Each structure stands twice: as structure tokens, then as C-alpha cells.
């Protein structure tokens, strides 16, 4: 399941944008100003294959994204891409993990209903028998101070 968002999924007043994603793919998205607070004590966990297609999600991922597990498995991780996130952040992410290193950053994610949630994300390559076989991303509750810094910084990188 991956394609343009549908306006009927969206709750509340929305804006529209067309995202240019990796591999010349574009996606029309609808987004609102409604924030879903990150749930205390939970981790959002997902794994993707080497092409960035989701192979595993935990319950918190499903709850926060608004999609069903069936909709998420096989979709590109960029299903969560919010138009306020600068592309350079994701380039840095992939450049880093492709070198076999950990990436950490603050990310504004887009929900199926057009709302958003901020996370502190850590992405690591899963190395088995010396080879990168997949990537795991773990998100935790970010500090509001860091989120506010990103709200100031990210528009300057768009």
C-alpha cells in the first residue's frame, strides 16, 4: 500500500503538498496542524529491507502512524515523510547507515490522518555474518527543547 494520500483520510483543516521521494517517486500528501503527543514509556520500532521497504512494525508504530499493519508492511518508510522535514536530513540518514554507522536525529512524522508526531529516532544497520541485511529504526520520546530547536532549524534547510 503506497501512493498518494486521500483527503478523506484526513481529520481537520489541511494543506496539500507533493513530496519528491527517493528514486524520483512523488507522493501527494495532506497535512494538518494537529499534533499527537508521543506516548510516555513506549518505543516505536520498525525494520526495513535494504531498499527501505518496511518488513516489521511494532504495535506502537501502528498506533502512532494511524495505518494498519497490513498497510505498512511492504510500504516504503517514506510513507511517514512530512513536508516540513528537509530532504537533506534523510540523505544524511541513508549516507550514515550505508557506511555501517548509527544515525540519530529528530523527525517530524506524518500520520495517515494528516496529523504529525515528533520522535527522537535512531537508525542502525542490521549486520549478519558481516553484511548489512536490513535496517532497524527505534523512536523514543523527544525533549520539547530539542523539538523546538528543530522547528526553528528545519525550515532553513528546505
Amino acid at each position, binding site marked *: 500500500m503506497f501512493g498518494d494520500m486521500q483527503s478523506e483520510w484526513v481529520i481537520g483543516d489541511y494543506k496539500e503538498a507533493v513530496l519528491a521521494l527517493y528514486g524520483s517517486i512523488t507522493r501527494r500528501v495532506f497535512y494538518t496542524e494537529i499534533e499527537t503527543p508521543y506516548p510516555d514509556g*513506549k518505543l516505536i520500532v520498525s525494520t526495513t529491507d535494504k531498499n527501505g521497504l518496511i518488513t516489521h512494525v511494532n504495535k506502537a508504530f501502528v498506533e502512532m502512524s494511524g495505518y494498519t499493519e497490513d498497510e505498512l508492511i511492504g510500504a516504503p518508510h517514506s510513507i511517514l515523510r512530512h513536508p516540513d522535514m528537509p530532504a537533506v536530513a534523510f540523505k544524511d540518514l541513508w549516507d550514515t547507515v550505508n557506511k555501517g554507522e548509527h544515525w540519530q536525529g529528530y523527525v517530524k512524522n506524518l500520520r495517515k490522518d494528516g496529523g504529525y508526531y515528533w520522535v527522537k529516532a*535512531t537508525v542502525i544497520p542490521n549486520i549478519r555474518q558481516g553484511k548489512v541485511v536490513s535496517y532497524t529504526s527505534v523512536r523514543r520520546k523527544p525533549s520539547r527543547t530539542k523539538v523546538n530547536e528543530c522547528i526553528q532549524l528545519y525550515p532553513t534547510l528546505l
Partner: protein
Amino acid sequence: MPYQFTVSPDFSPDHLSGWYIFNTWLQKQTGEAIHLEMYDNFQSQRNAIQQNNVDLIYANPYDAAMLVRENGFLPLVTSGIADEAIIAVNADSPIADVAELAANIRVAMSEDPDVRMMGLIMLEPADLNASNISIIGCDSYVLVAKQLLRQDAEVGVFLAEAYDDLSNIIKSKLRILVRSQISVIHHALMIGPKLANKRAEYQQLLLNMADDPKGKDVLHSLGFETWVKVEDEDMEFMIDLMDTLAI
């Protein structure tokens, strides 16, 4: 020379005799001489692992990466009980949310490395980390609770299971701010290189344990209902997850 078995030093004191009973059961079932060595702290246990003195270990998840990736250990089973952490305050504390906590607060916590890690992660939303809080190390979770009751610490970090086991009187004087719901971090029984060729045999004995009345009694003495098999990939996944949380 008998093989050496050891248990993560964060075991509940109530289960100390249970581990000796389990070791006796294991020797009887396997026909091997196995010596149970209980270390006082994580560092002395890690030193023993590095000196190749340990052959079987009920390991803290924090040490799983070292055991698998540096010392050639393989997972056998887990109790199926996930390690979760709790951030708690004195019931009279004005703090209602972790985000209200300020730098330089006093945080009481045990030495348990996975609980410490989970606790520090749950303090991050308040911009707190090990460098801007004052950590009060405690030998037990009852002592963490005492630090809160005496108001010698503003915050306590608990293993959730240990918090739940505190007396009702103590719990009535404390208040939970956050309980982790991570679900996939757990202790595991792991087997070392010298016993690696017996892995399947040990695994099967452990998985059958709950089906035998005596085996079930031994499990109960550890506070467990059964053992659950840990696949290699399950362990790798947990190690990867711990890696993401350690930074």
C-alpha cells in the same frame, strides 16, 4: 573441571535459593558437573566472562551483545517476562510529568544496566542525562524506594517487577510517573563455546521443564512459569535494539 553457571547479579534476593535448586536440577538432567557462581556485581561477572570462566549464564540484556558478539555465546531460552522500568516519585511530590523535572535532581537507581538505560531514556524528555543529574546508587529496589520516602532523592528508577513487588504500604507513599512498555527486552539463559555442542540438548530439556511436575516446581522457585525458546535472530534483534538505545 566443572562447567560454570552464573546468574545476572540483578536477580531478586527471593530467588537466590531457586537458582541453586535450578542448578541441581540441571546437573541431574544433563549428567554434567556444573558449579553455580554468584557474582556480587556486574563488573566482576564481566571479568569472569572475559577470562572464559563462564559456560552458562542467565544474562542481563545489556550484556547480551558482549556475550554473543565477543564471547561466542548462543541463546537458549527466556522466561518470557520482559524487563520494564518505572520512574517514580514520592506521592507528595509536586511533579506530575517527567517533562517537569529539572537538571541537577537526585535520582536513585540500582546498578542493573538495562534498567538504568531504560530509566535514563525515560528521563530524556526533560533534557536529563547522566551528566546533569545526581545519581544515587542503591544495592536494592527497596533502598531506591527508601531514598524517595526519605526525600533524599526526587526520582527513583525501578525494575517494574521489583516495584510491583514492593509492599502496599510503601507503594501507597510513592507515585509512578512513567512505566515503560518496551516488551522486547528480556533476560536470557545463554550457553558458552565450551558447551555449544550441547545446545540443542540443553534447550530441549529446558523447554520440557514445565511439563514435568518437579521441573515446574523448580521453575516456580525462580518465579517463572515456563521457558520460551530464543531463536538466534530474536537475540540479534534484541541486541540491535539495545544498540539503538545505548546511544
